[in-house]
């Protein structure tokens, strides 16, 4: 029988990912690539918002999309149809992307040749919020039909995001969605959160969001 020894570890499981995420960000800074991690629940309109955003930026910004999904390529095909490079990352059953998966995706994608990459995370408001992907900014989409109480029910995701997009404002008349209340709840979780109400269907409200993106891409890639 081998002698048994006790190894005191005291090492955080989250810290491992955080360290790797920091390395990914340093690489993005060096390569002058602005990476946005886009999160929402399923059906909030991530892909539709992305398609509209692509349409407004693609003529003067070199951009690409990394689609993370548990196991399909429906979204990647839609993005490819919009005429920008995209790849599909499969998380293999996992509910979120971590920094290591992001790093592999960026390498395979030759992201260093692009100015702006969007990482469309798995549709889920819980797990993606807990794992730093290494992105430069976190953006989440909340859609009107989901209700204005989400910042109370899923506090963490609101604290880790820089931008909150409130999508589907074209259906506001049909829902008891209180825009003032959602802003109040969201700012309670994160006073610095930028909020952009818009409709990916009609295109209403896109200007401030696109302006924010242009400003942040330029600042990161300077």
């Amino acid at each position, binding site marked *: 029988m*081998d002698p048994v020894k006790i*190894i*005191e*570890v005291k*090492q955080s*499981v*989250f810290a*491992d990912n955080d360290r790797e995420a920091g390395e990914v960000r340093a690489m993005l800074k060096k390569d002058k690539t602005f990476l946005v991690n886009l999160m929402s629940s399923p059906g909030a309109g991530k892909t539709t918002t992305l398609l509209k955003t692509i349409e407004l930026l693609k003529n003067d910004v070199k951009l690409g999309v990394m689609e993370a999904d548990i196991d399909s390529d429906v979204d990647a095909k839609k993005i490819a149809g919009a005429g920008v490079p995209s790849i599909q990352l499969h998380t293999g059953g996992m509910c979120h992307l*971590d920094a290591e998966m992001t790093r592999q995706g960026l390498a395979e994608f030759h992201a260093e040749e692009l100015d702006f990459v969007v990482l469309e995370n798995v549709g889920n408001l819980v*797990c993606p919020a807990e794992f730093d992907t290494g992105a430069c900014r976190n953006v989440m989409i909340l859609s009107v039909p989901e209700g204005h109480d989400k910042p109370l029910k899923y506090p963490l995701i609101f604290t880790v995001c820089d931008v909150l997009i409130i999508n589907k404002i074209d259906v506001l008349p049909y829902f008891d969605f209180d825009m003032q209340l959602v802003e109040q709840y969201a700012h309670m979780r994160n006073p610095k959160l930028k909020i952009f109400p818009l409709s990916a269907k009609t295109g209403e409200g896109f200007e401030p969001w696109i302006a924010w993106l242009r400003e942040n891409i330029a600042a990161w890639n300077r």
Partner: protein
Amino acid sequence: MHEMGLTDAVLKMVDGILEKNGCRGASRITLEIGDLSGVVPRFVRDCWEAVADGTKYEATELVLETVPGTARCLDCGREFTVNLDDLVCPDCLGRKLKPLTGTDMTVKEIEAY
């Protein structure tokens, strides 16, 4: 599913630590799971069985210890024990809280051979 990724990360971390210490395997691994980490210990146990299956950790005992969550109220400054279902200050009912402990999941120690 969330716990799956975490337990897989634990396994890889333990692999690295054993190698660094010149050990071949582990008879016991102790994890600390914070009450505010959002990690469910029961699920970690189930996932561990799945990720350890067919590896050298099949017979490793997994010990799970929980760490209470504490927070400070940013309105009145009071520090108190808190859980995820009830994120409110017991004194002033403030909801702006800064978590102090219990947000992490750590590998505490490994009994290795």
